[in-house]
């Protein structure tokens, strides 16, 4: 009797391939890369801010990390994972090592020095991927791990190289990213303060605003989203619920502060939300597999981002939210399974709605209607009156803790401003000192709300600014009436 081979079915398979899915992702990123070349290369060249090398620099910037992540993975797989020759080749073929590098390039500011870029790529591969056992096993999005490292360790360096602004943007905008601008102002802001400096919301939509290399264009991200959803590559529920949640919450916050529809649109178009939601949060390895889990995950990301934006001193929040939710994927999937039962689903929806309520309430109590703020970080330590002078010892929360100052006021004017104690990162604080911000504050004390913060040392300089504003307010309340 003839013997046939045995195989395991099904004997009909779909055409899906991991490699083609990854290819589609790269294809969806292509317009974003081209746009980045335009915005960070061609436009500065036209404005004569950079030479011919500078024009092509963005392409180099985007090309380096993938090469580094690929090489690192190759070496790492050889030593850490102990893959040998054939095995190694097979592993490299299926580990898509260039993608974390590509993503990393797109979520860093163009002024990141190349050395830091390379270091970040290595960290992304080693800490983000290899220590977990390589592709498919990592808990955190490798590119975000790399970025977290770069931003925490080298923010000052990046800022001193120019931060998030392009040379031509420095001329016209002279402020940092829209959200760090939003954080630096008092109250919730107005269209004139939040959007006007950057032109219009149209600029936000197409991406002609300061930001990282690839995150600014919501339009191209949406194009990528539609393409990847059509090709069934990404978990579409995550970005839809993520952006939807941010939109909903900021609409409510905006409306309760008398701001119309432009406000939530400004919020969703800022801070690289579209890029993060569509490309980073949907990384298959580090996101939930259950359908309900993906909905919960997206909603959770939305809530976290809003919390980060309004209630912490970190203006962006998208990438931090994703890293935070990465940790919870296992639990979210569990929850997603439970939610197949109707009653559990309803309970989850109720919990989410309650969370929405808490978040909106907390944020609204902080930002009052008039635009004035009761600043919880401002502390009046001491108040002395000597003749017609009032000497305040006050503190305001900075980046590294409270900044304590002595402020002397006479006839409503600050005549002396002295920093007594601070714990700011030296790199940042050096920028404050370099710009002689203390003297600027004294000079401009009548028009403080409009005063710019120090680019690259936003948090420290803003704390000083707030400190002065609050002290003047304190003086007004007790001595001017």
């Amino acid at each position, binding site marked *: *009797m*003839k*013997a*046939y*081979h*045995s*195989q*395991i*079915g*099904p*004997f*009909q*398979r*779909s055409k*899906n*391939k*991991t490699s*083609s*899915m990854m290819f589609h992702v790269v294809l969806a990123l292509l317009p974003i890369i081209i746009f980045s070349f335009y915005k960070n290369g061609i436009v500065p060249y036209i404005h004569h801010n950079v030479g011919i090398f500078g024009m092509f620099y963005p392409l180099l910037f985007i090309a380096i990390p993938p090469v580094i992540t690929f090489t690192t993975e190759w070496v790492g797989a050889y030593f850490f994972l102990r893959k040998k020759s054939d095995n190694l080749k097979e592993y490299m073929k*299926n*580990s898509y090592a260039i993608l974390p590098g590509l993503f990393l390039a797109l979520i860093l500011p163009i002024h990141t020095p190349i050395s830091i870029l390379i270091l970040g790529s290595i960290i992304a591969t080693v800490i983000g991927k290899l220590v977990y056992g*390589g*592709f*498919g096993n990592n808990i955190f999005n490798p590119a975000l791990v790399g970025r977290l490292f770069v931003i925490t360790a080298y923010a000052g360096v990046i800022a001193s190289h120019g931060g998030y602004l392009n040379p031509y943007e420095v001329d016209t905008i002279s402020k940092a990213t829209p959200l760090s601008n939003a954080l630096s102002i008092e109250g919730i802001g107005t269209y004139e303060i939040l959007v006007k400096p950057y032109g219009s919301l149209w600029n936000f939509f197409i991406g002609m605003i300061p930001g990282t290399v690839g995150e600014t264009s919501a339009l191209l991200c949406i194009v990528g989203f539609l393409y990847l959803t059509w090709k*069934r*590559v990404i*978990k579409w529920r995550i970005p839809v619920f993520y952006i939807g949640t941010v939109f909903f919450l900021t609409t409510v916050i905006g409306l309760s502060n008398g701001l119309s529809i432009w406000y939530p649109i400004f919020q969703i178009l800022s801070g690289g939300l579209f890029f993060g939601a569509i490309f980073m949060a949907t990384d*298959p*390895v580090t*996101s*939930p*597999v*259950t*359908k309900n889990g*993906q909905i919960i995950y997206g909603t959770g990301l939305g809530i976290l981002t809003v919390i980060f934006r309004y209630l912490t001193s970190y203006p962006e929040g998208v990438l931090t939210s994703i890293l935070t939710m990465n940790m919870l994927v296992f639990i979210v*999937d569990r929850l997603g*399974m439970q939610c*197949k039962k109707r009653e559990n689903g309803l309970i989850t929806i109720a919990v989410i709605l309650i969370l929405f309520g808490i978040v909106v309430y907390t944020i609204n109590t902080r930002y009052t209607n008039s635009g004035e703020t009761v600043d919880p970080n401002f502390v009046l330590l001491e108040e002395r009156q000597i003749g017609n002078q009032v000497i305040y010892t006050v503190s305001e929360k900075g980046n590294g803790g409270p900044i304590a100052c002595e402020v002397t006021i006479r006839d409503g004017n600050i005549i002396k401003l002295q920093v007594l104690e601070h714990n700011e990162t030296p790199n940042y604080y050096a920028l404050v000192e370099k710009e002689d911000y203390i003297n600027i504050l004294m000079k401009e004390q009548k028009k403080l709300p409009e005063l710019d913060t120090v680019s690259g040392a936003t948090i420290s300089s803003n704390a000083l600014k707030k400190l002065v504003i609050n002290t003047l307010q304190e003086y007004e309340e007790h001595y001017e009436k």
Partner: protein
Amino acid sequence: MKGIKLVQNKEMSKDRFTIYNKPKNIYIPLIVGNDIDITILVKKGDYVCKGEVVARRKGFLTIPLHSSISGTVVGFEEQLHHSGKYVKCIKIENDFKERTIEKQEEKPISKYSKQEFIEIIKNAGIIGMGGAGFPTYIKYQTEQNIKTLIVNAVECEPYITADYTIGIQKAEEILETIDAILEINRIQNAVIAIKKNNSKLLQAFQTRIGTYVNIKIVEVPNLYPIGWEKALVQFITRNTYDKLPIEIGIVVNNISTIYAIYQALKKGVPLTERIVTITGEMLKQPTNVLVKIGTPIHEVIEAIGGMKRTKDILCIAGGPMMGITLPNDNVIVTADMNAIVILKEKEDFLEQTCMRCGKCVEVCPSRIEPVLIKDSYENKEALLKLQVNKCVECGLCSYICPAKIKVREYVKKAKETLRKDE
């Protein structure tokens, strides 16, 4: 409705039909469904008529097995069953006389009581011919009120056209039988489920349905696995059940089973033959064949023209989705085997790392999480929460997987883990 549109490949055997009724020997496998606890009622040297009971399954689901020819019992042999196992069979040598026990008279098929009806289909050895092999009479032997009879003519597996063939040929008889079943069992109505792209089969029924007011034809989408009982019931009634459709007053019968019931009611003939689709691109002439139960398939394959080649092929019992490969084509026809598919052997896919894209979760018609089951297929505690036993092994998770992981096999192993030390 969840499901996937598959490449059908049904054209090669569609509307092709032949009869093979001259096996030299037949082998009655002593197995029903998965159960091999069967009493043998004949011994070597006995002469048996066509339709004579030669064995009987024991226990609650008792059902007789019949000889499909007249001839002499020459012994007992192990033969290949379509489950891939070797099973003890009763070997009967054909005398080609087709002698029956008694001359059967034709009767009007609706003139039976419910009890008589159940006795008849039980004695005729009728089991579900769609693949489950569950005794049909059990479905009717219920205290519960049956509201609807669903006749499953969906046949959603690619390649297979056996149900299609019987539907085209016997539409009249099938309608008559459904009507009789409704009357005997006091069932309100019946639904015949046919794929909407199967226009010829739809037409065969639509042109004849005129006077049968209680029978309705429902077109179902061309999706796999909508022919699966639970999916079909849900599609038609918008209602779901836990274990058996009777919980919500539904009985589902395969269209081939209905024809077997017709033969039993009308002529008193037990289930001794069926249509098997023998197809696949490695056959010279794919076709549907009416064969006697117990016939070795390789004889039939020879009779219809043979294979294009005998090397580097896969011989699959059942369809390409749920079927399994057989070590050779000497497999014995049983009532619940609907197809043999001969395919070109391709290199097996290399399994790559799972990147957790969630496609298997997305596609699963049982709404379980194959990837999570795969993660902990040896961890009994974790598996209990994952509702592993809801899996119908339709194979869509393996079908869809971009990393070419045989996800279904992990789920099967998980079921094994749960079964262990129970």
